[in-house]
């Protein structure tokens, strides 16, 4: 968020290059319509931004163009930065790739450089000086847009990781005072910690007496993870809840025996069904078919 990269700090331009940039900006503003159209057609030709319609590309091209010229004129990148973040926010969900965004900005840079060549081809020294002023600024702009895009992408990825983590550890109540905690996927120390915290909170809010932790969906387990599991069981016991672990696969059972983790204190049952049945027994429930119940009555 708004990281000040050294690349974003505008170097104090010499008066001469300021003047040249001013001339350049005037030129770009004058030929706005033509350059913009050329750029948009180059984008379509290069088959970039295929996820967007022609009109959308043209609309975006217009605002990118204006922001680009604005950044050249003022030498500050803040407006462009926020615009590129905003743009990224809109186009990332539509599946626009990094290479496309970088590609269109580089294309614009080329289109503008070409138009400068065309304008100053008679005066080679002047063209050189203009390019000296133009190129560093243009590179900085390309950099800013690319970095903005990547940062936005990373933000989205982080957000999704967070969401997956939240979703992947549900604590569910199946009966009064009975919780189940199905664990799916890889358990790393961070997740184990979150899992334990969530379970302990769940025990307190639901006043649970028995918890069934189902690890059918856990592919592998090493000593660290096994220890986390033991800790979770112990912490739950301190809150007065009994833990039943179910769904230990043969591989995990073997690993646990091999690494010699003490699971003696743990209550383990083969599968989730067995676990829930044992939990019901502990809670004093008895599940019988309705016909039998009415027959007996």
């Amino acid at each position, binding site marked *: 968020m708004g990281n000040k990269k050294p690349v974003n700090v505008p170097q104090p331009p010499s008066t001469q290059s300021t003047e040249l940039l001013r001339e350049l900006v005037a030129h770009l503003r004058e030929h706005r319509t033509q350059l913009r159209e050329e750029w948009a057609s180059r984008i379509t030709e290069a088959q970039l931004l295929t996820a967007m319609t022609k009109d959308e590309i043209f609309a975006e091209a217009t605002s990118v163009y204006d922001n680009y010229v604005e950044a050249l004129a003022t030498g500050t990148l803040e407006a462009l930065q926020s615009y590129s973040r905003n743009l990224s926010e809109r186009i990332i969900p539509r599946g626009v790739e990094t290479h496309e965004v970088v590609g269109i900005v580089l294309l614009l840079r080329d289109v503008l450089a070409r138009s400068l060549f065309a304008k100053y081809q008679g005066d080679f020294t002047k063209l050189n000086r203009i390019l000296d002023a133009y190129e560093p600024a243009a590179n900085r702009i390309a950099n800013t847009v690319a970095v903005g895009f990547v940062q936005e992408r990373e933000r989205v990825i982080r957000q999704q990781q967070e969401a997956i983590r939240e979703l992947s550890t549900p604590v569910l109540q199946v009966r009064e005072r009975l919780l189940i905690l199905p664990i799916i996927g890889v358990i790393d120390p961070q997740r184990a910690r979150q899992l334990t915290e969530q379970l302990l909170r769940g025990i*307190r809010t639901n*006043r649970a007496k028995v918890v069934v932790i189902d690890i059918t969906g856990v592919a592998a387990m090493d000593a660290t993870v096994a220890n986390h599991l033991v*800790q979770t069981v*112990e*912490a739950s016991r*301190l809150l*007065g809840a009994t833990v039943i672990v179910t769904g230990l696969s043969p591989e995990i059972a073997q690993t646990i025996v091999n690494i010699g983790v003490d699971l003696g204190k743990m209550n383990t049952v083969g599968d989730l069904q067995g676990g829930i049945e044992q939990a019901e027994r502990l809670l004093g429930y008895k599940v019988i078919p309705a016909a039998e119940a009415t027959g007996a009555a």
Partner: protein
Amino acid sequence: MEVPILKQGRYLIATIQAALSDEDLLQLRRALLERVIQFRSRGVIVDVTALDVMDSFATRTLRDITYMIRLRGADTVIVGIQPEVAFAMVQLGLTLDVACALDLEEGLAHLEQRARSSS
């Protein structure tokens, strides 16, 4: 600070009100043992809801209290350990292998059940 010990039927209830010094913990141990003998209690509940830290000395003392009271033929249950405290305890490797319950109500239910199953 002294811990008040309440008599409720055949049970004793000690509610810890604030963080205790080591001396206070030893005093609690002495007092509980005396009362168990005096009132011929069947069960003791130690309520630690107010504690937000549980160090190794506190853990060991609670365990000792439980064992000593068991020698008098009574059960002890620790109630109200906070989730954060429980988590910190297992992280620090402090084991408290005595009966625990969520709160006072659960603790009483646990003692009632023990009394039923032993009679």
